[in-house]
């Protein structure tokens, strides 16, 4: 066989093998998604958004409490985690740079990122829930914030470092003070990347169940007081899906569907932003 034919044959074999494995991976993904969508869409109706939880068998039961609880917990965690993460990342990239301190912080946050979220849940349980004497929305918020900060911190750090140092120097050369260089040039240059990090960070914590089980716990009714236990979509889904009641299970599907669509949406927007950034 001549070498060119041989190369083309190998090329074809590799192409077929890799396409096949991609197909297998994707088909599982679509299987999960389609089951989720079929059951989820069936389970979704207006009641879900207008009624709180109810004992099994009640017509008028919904997920309003879990939706609002989820929004509050994730929203407040975002409000705390994003500025802290961005400021920390700014310190690493612009002030700490190559110092020992900066490397230690980078290493610790890399470890934090891969720490099982249940560990963080138990940590917050020990330092917040036990001293307070009860579960609370705040405990959930703190757990999610702890998970979110290292993600945003490291993406911010990476994205700011991608901004060429000549751009910083050019701004300094025009007489800009350091904070101006950072806010008006470096942040602008890294805007899309940092935003993507924020979206992916939110998407990551929005799907967390384990750290909330020990912290914000659950409430079958609407509660907006962060000092009390608070419902979330993930914990509600976990409770309903593992219950023996058909109507609760159906609500569990609805919760899973809404949550997945939310996270999928965040991820898609994040990816689109990355593509836009590359396309420029």
């Amino acid at each position, binding site marked *: 066989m001549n070498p060119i034919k041989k190369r083309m044959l190998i090329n074809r074999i590799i192409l077929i093998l890799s396409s096949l494995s991609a197909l297998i991976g994707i088909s599982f993904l679509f299987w999960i998604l389609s089951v989720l969508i079929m059951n989820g869409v069936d389970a979704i109706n207006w009641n879900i958004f207008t009624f709180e939880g109810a004992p099994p068998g009640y017509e008028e039961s919904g997920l309003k409490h879990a939706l609002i609880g989820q929004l509050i917990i994730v929203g407040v965690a975002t409000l705390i985690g994003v500025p802290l993460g961005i400021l920390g990342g700014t310190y690493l990239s612009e002030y700490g740079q190559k110092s020992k301190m900066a490397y230690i912080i980078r290493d610790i946050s890399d470890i934090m990122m891969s720490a099982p979220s249940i560990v963080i849940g138990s940590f917050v349980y020990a330092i917040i829930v036990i001293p307070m004497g009860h579960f609370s929305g705040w405990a959930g918020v703190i757990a999610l914030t702890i998970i979110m900060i290292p993600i945003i911190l490291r993406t911010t750090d990476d994205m700011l470092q991608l901004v*060429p140092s*000549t*751009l*910083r*120097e*050019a*701004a*300094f*050369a*025009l*007489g*800009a*003070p350091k904070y*101006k260089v950072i806010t*008006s*040039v470096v942040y*602008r*240059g890294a*805007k899309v990347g940092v935003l993507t990090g924020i979206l992916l960070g939110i998407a990551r914590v929005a799907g967390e169940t384990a750290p909330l089980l020990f912290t914000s716990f659950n409430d079958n009714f609407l509660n907006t007081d962060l000092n009390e236990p608070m419902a979330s979509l993930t914990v509600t889904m976990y409770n309903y899906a593992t219950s023996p009641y058909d109507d609760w299970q159906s609500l569990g599907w609805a919760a899973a569907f809404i949550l997945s669509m939310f996270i999928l949406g965040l991820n898609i927007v994040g990816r689109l932003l990355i593509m836009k950034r590359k396309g*420029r």
Partner: protein
Amino acid sequence: MATIVDITDEKALEVKNFEFTYNGAQEPSLKNITMPIAKRSITALIGPSGCGKTTLLRSFNRMHDLYAGNRYSGSIEFEGRNILDAKEDLIKLRTNIGMIFQKPTAFPMSIFDNVAYGLRLQGIKNRSELNDRVEKALQDAAIWKEVSSRLKNDANGLSGGQQQRLCIARAIAVEPEVLLFDEPTSALDPISTQGIEKLVIELKERVSIIIVTHNMQQAARVSDYTGFMYMGELIELGVTEELFVTPKERLTEEYITGKFG
């Protein structure tokens, strides 16, 4: 000893016994530099790679201070004071001594905002004053015609040569006394290079210019004075024609005749 031409005209800058050592380096990168820079004229710095041209240029606007641990001694006089003094206001100094880099450094913002950047830093907020000064700077940098209809567009959409002229516009908008150019055309095509050279010559009516270049023809074309550097020292500073035609130092002659470098 270096051969330094006597500059009788007014001087923009005067370097005296300047020595510079990078953070962590054993040897100084610049040794005992004494060099007058004539006002409203163009001084070119030439010399083989690594001889310290960029290092010297970045000393004039104290760019080295951005990184910890760099050491220097001697003095650089500008407007009657030593700008190496610890009390020197670096922000003010850098608005007086502007810099153009080797690669264009357009900020990730609109063309207008790029040019307005330094003006806004100086606290100019008035819209019509900003508009006027941005337009004037762009005209002086010979790029107004190309960008006047798209001032709101992202500056990164411009070509390399246009971006470099935009950077020049941005630097001259704040009306500096001195402009430092570090190989401003080495990333550009011949046509853009010609444009920048023409611009640099026009600018010397208003500003004193120091330009680092690897291209000896470029130094000969644009500059009034040329300094030849070698291994961290200024070997010779002369009137450009004289330095290229009748160099006084053997090293200068060997370099311009292409024996090394």
